[in-house]
């Protein structure tokens, strides 16, 4: 039972354009969402997060949008740069109880082309 889904395994975008990565979740108990970025042969690194009390969080070129009614979140990267090419994982958790475990999606491979 995949509680966090990233239905696009890959995405290709031109440098300077917007990258939009999508994520859906099924568990309504999730109240905190994160995006991680992963380069080959490295561990995932934290990118940006959002609490369920918000619908948008922005950090530089990265913005995460949350639509709770649709159980959907998206990560926008503007403008996209070649160094953004990586696998992006969406993750969700409950802020209280249960060790605050993260449930991950399967990832989207982003390729930013020159």
């Amino acid at each position: 039972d995949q509680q966090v889904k990233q239905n696009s395994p890959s995405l290709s975008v031109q440098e300077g354009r917007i990258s939009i990565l999508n994520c859906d979740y099924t568990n309504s108990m999730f109240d905190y969402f994160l995006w991680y970025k992963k380069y080959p042969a490295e561990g995932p690194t934290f990118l940006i997060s959002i609490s369920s009390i918000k619908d948008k969080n922005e950090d530089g070129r990265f913005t995460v949008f949350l639509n709770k009614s649709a159980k959907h979140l998206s990560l926008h990267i503007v403008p996209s740069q070649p160094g953004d090419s990586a696998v992006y994982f969406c993750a969700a958790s409950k802020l209280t109880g249960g060790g605050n475990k993260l449930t991950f999606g399967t990832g989207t491979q982003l390729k930013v082309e020159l």
Partner: protein
Amino acid sequence: NAGVTQTPKFRILKIGQSMTLQCTQDMNHNYMYWYRQDPGMGLKLIYYSVGAGITDKGEVPNGYNVSRSTTEDFPLRLELAAPSQTSVYFCASRPGGGGNTIYFGEGSWLTVV
């Protein structure tokens, strides 16, 4: 500036062998986690710990054991290795209190043949 350190980085095991993946963090984090990532898949939680002396199972604990005798260390033990345990293993940690940002190690690549 070590953060979360995992050893070994690469290991080949024969079926039936046992080994321990080491994980240590120097950030005094209460929470520690072990995840595995199979090709084309997301990260699956194996075991986690909310503090020294306390461990609990995640989604995929079968074939593994953990211990947490100190705040810093969270070793993962594989008993009777099987080909299905071929994977990349990530140790992670986070501080107690609010916020859910988890910090990952660089990973340990394990092949069981």
